[in-house]
């Protein structure tokens, strides 16, 4: 394994960041590295590893009920942007050695990964738009049952429930993951008793509506796959060999680190947000001696665990707010299916409570969705800018 080339015996966490640097320094002199090392350079590289580690330790310290929440995902993206910025500074400060082999190849490799991540950013943006469409359906539910459109105290009647139920069915179908949408669609349609007014008109409507739920299409072709894209980002992402570390005066390390951060962040985004052909089967084998490896591996495991939970298995995104959205709307749908008219006070109270819950989820989503979209776009722009700067300096 290449990782053993430079690694001493497994040291305690606190020493991990340093483990390869002193070793390298000793060897640099004896082997006469083509690029002269300086103490400030070493300090810079070391501090980069440490800062990446600090950020991910912070992200990993999240309690389980906030993992994959919108604020957490936004924090994750922030962390990525910060890492990327520090990485950029390192490349800038070392712009001469960066142009020489094997650094030029390593940077080109990273840039290739980063360009592949751009497609993930675009897919995530589509996913955010998808969530917005669900929000619209929820707004209809809230409009029907929330009664905030008129200030008069009115009891809820069958009409409002029918309206809400229709929107809830649309929502449930829209939220199905693409993979199982085919059969489940028909099934859910039936179970919700959607087309019970049997006129010839409704047959036509039925046919149309199936198309409508899926009509918000992705901006990429049908064959595009987030899972495959993630594989491509992680393709050949290998710990630099000892001689590479030596030949690059340690610069190979931040490149590897940044590649790993990129892969993980993109993976986590795909896990959280709906996108075409999500798949989380990417293998992470980050060597533990990197100070950031432990928190990232722990987050990876936790997210993977989350995806295996029974009620999340078929989710179209692991985002906590999506889960709540799905749960609240399902409960409300079940309640709406069971109510008898006229509504008794107790039921009405229950409905109001469920509607309130849904409203809270929806409000929280609304608040963070736009900033999230902006951030994802920012990731896109930064990746492009860094790459452009890299190309310009060649």
């Amino acid at each position, binding site marked *: 394994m290449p990782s053993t080339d430079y690694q001493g015996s497994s040291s305690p966490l606190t020493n991990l960041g340093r483990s390869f640097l002193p070793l390298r320094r000793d060897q640099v002199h004896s082997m006469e590295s083509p690029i002269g090392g300086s103490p400030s350079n070493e300090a810079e590289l070391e501090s980069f590893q440490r800062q990446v580690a600090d950020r991910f330790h912070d992200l990993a310290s999240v309690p389980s009920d906030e993992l994959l929440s919108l604020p957490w995902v936004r924090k994750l993206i922030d962390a990525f942007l910060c890492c990327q910025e520090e990485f950029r500074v390192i490349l800038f400060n070392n712009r001469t050695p960066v142009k020489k082999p094997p650094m030029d190849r390593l940077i080109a490799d990273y840039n290739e990964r980063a360009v592949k991540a751009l497609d993930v950013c675009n897919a995530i943006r589509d996913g955010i738009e998808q969530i917005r469409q669900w929000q619209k359906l929820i707004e209809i539910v809230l409009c029907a049952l929330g009664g905030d459109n008129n200030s008069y105290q009115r009891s809820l009647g069958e009409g409002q429930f029918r309206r809400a139920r229709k929107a809830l069915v649309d929502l449930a179908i829209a939220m199905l993951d693409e993979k199982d949408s085919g059969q489940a669609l028909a099934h859910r349609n039936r179970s919700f008793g959607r087309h019970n007014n049997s006129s010839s008109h409704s047959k036509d409507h039925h046919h149309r509506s199936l*198309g409508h739920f899926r009509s918000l299409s992705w901006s990429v072709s049908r064959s595009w796959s987030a899972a495959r894209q993630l594989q491509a980002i992680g393709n050949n992402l290998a710990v630099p060999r000892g001689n590479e570390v030596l030949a690059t005066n340690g610069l190979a390390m931040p490149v590897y680190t940044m590649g790993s951060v990129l892969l993980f962040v993109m993976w986590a985004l795909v896990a959280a947000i709906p996108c075409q052909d999500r798949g989380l089967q990417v293998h992470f084998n980050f060597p533990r001696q990197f100070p950031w490896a432990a928190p990232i591996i722990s987050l990876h495991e936790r997210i993977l665990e989350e995806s295996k939970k029974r009620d999340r298995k078929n989710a179209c995104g692991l985002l906590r707010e999506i889960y709540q959205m799905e749960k609240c709307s399902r409960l409300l749908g079940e309640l709406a299916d069971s109510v008898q008219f006229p509504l008794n006070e107790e039921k009405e109270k229950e409905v109001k409570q469920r509607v309130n819950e849904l409203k809270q989820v929806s409000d929280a989503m609304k608040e963070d969705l736009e900033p999230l979209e902006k951030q994802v776009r920012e990731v896109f722009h930064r990746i492009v800018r860094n790459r452009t700067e890299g190309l310009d300096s060649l």
Partner: protein
Amino acid sequence: MADNGEEKLLAVARHIAKTLGQNDTMADDILQIFSNFDGRFSREKLSENMVDGNNPRGCAVLDRALHSLDRQISQYVALDHPIWAHSADSSAFLDAIDELIRTIRDWSPMAAEKSVGACLARADDLMQQAMFRVEDEFRSLMDRGADSFELGRNNHESTGNLSFDSDDDNEENEEGLLHNGAALDHQIPVAQPVTDYDIVIDALPSGTINDLHEIAKRMVAAGFGKECSHVYSTCRREFLEESISRLGLQKLSIDEVQKMPWQELEDEIERWIKAANVSLRILFPSERRLCDRIFFGFSSAADLSFMEVCRGSTIQLLNFADAIAIGSRSPERLFKVLDVFETMRDLMPEFDSVFSDQYCLVLRNEAITIWKRLGEAIRGIFMELENLIRRDPAKAAVPGGGLHPITRYVMNYLRAACRSRQTLEQVFDESNVVVPSLDDRRVSSSSMSVQMAWIMELLESNLEMKSRIYRDSALCSIFMMNNGRYIVQKVKDSELESLLGDDWIRKHNAKVRQYCTNYQRSSWNKILGTLKLDNSSLASNAIAKSMKEKIKSFNSQFDDVCKTQSSWVVFDEQLREEMRISVSRLLLPAYRNFIGRLQCIPEIGRNVDRLIRYGPEDIEARINELFEGGNGSSGGRK
């Protein structure tokens, strides 16, 4: 109905009294005021049922009204054919809905009264049924609209706009701007590619647009605006996406664009340019107009719906342009990237006008970002060109000192690039302001002339490096002269002339002349030296011997030079001629002079004809064979 109206009035008055009056006395006072105001508010009528607050009589009116509305509305809701198939049906249905909306609005303030509340629940129920039906009608009108438009298009107002030049060779344009496509079951009307963008299409006949507007009005009034907007956006989005895919544009990821062979990508760019123009100039403005007409009076709903309709297609268009901007910087791509840049630039006014509302502003800003990025990409391509020139290795010498392929490539490339001079000037000027440079050189190369001069400089120093591969310094000069001459010629008959300026051309013409001089010097000075006459007063015997030696030396040297240099190349005919003349002028007088003397030396006598191998005409003829690039391996490959 008059009775009904009066009941409502009374109910409202009672309600006001009850709400405002904090106690019975106050309520009584308020009622008194009402009764003084108008005969209809007699105390007798007003006080009726005041006490129990159940208002059976008022409620009975409401009940009766609802009953009648229920009968009308249910009858339409149950219809198994489209209500909008008959205008009498549709207007009666809309009237009933209006009445229902009015009734609910009027009675809502009294919803707290139990019996009124119960009636209103029924009204809501009825409203919901009416709205579901109306939503379906809205959807099928949107779908069917295109069909009826196809049949009745002659009556259609926009037909007048669909004029194309009669010499338009694409007949399909005239026939089917709106085209229902082959897939009849799909029912999505589609726009065909056009060449004249100055048109607006109406995807729906104006009768249908009016119907849709009438429905939208009711749905918004009844609080079902969101549903209406949802149905609308979904239908139109399908139309747009289908239209764009009919324009031949695929959905491609950045990765796919990067991996696509350049030739395929060139075709894709061509299609993109068409699609972007049709979308921004025809489809989007038409959608905007349609949306504004259907949601007339509800600007927020119109803006939101419009954004929903266009967002996906716009993102698709922008993503492709973005992928091109991010793609390879290979110099061959310049011209197509320029096309994409220019398309974006020229469409900016359209982006501004069509995406000016609050919801679409994001799209417009994205378009600007991507447009700027295309500018960066173009600058990047020039940087790549610089790198290629700088790093082009001197592999094998061009035979005969002819034109090097890099000279030909760079000059023709720059000439072609200069055809887009205005665009490039825009691009290079912008780099001054926008791009924070990591490299000092870039700051100075901001304007296009500086950029061009810089590339010429790189080319020249690369050529100088390449010239060192020749062992013969005369050939080295020929190589530099040839390439220099070519450069100047290409500059002079293109935009480069004005970009580089007269000074530059003068300077480079002088350089070419200098190379000529260098050539003559290193090639002919030595030979010329052999023809130098000795004026010293040597013995005639010695003179004869020296002259004999000299002519022999001349003969062999001249032979050698001619043999070698006939395979050299001067690609430019005029220059070749000039050089021959100048060599002749240099050589012939000295030669004539020399052989004249030689013939006068008595010691040589009869041997003179053997010694003088060439007459002056022979010399000239041999000189005229120089630089022909003989041996078939000329460097002046065209």
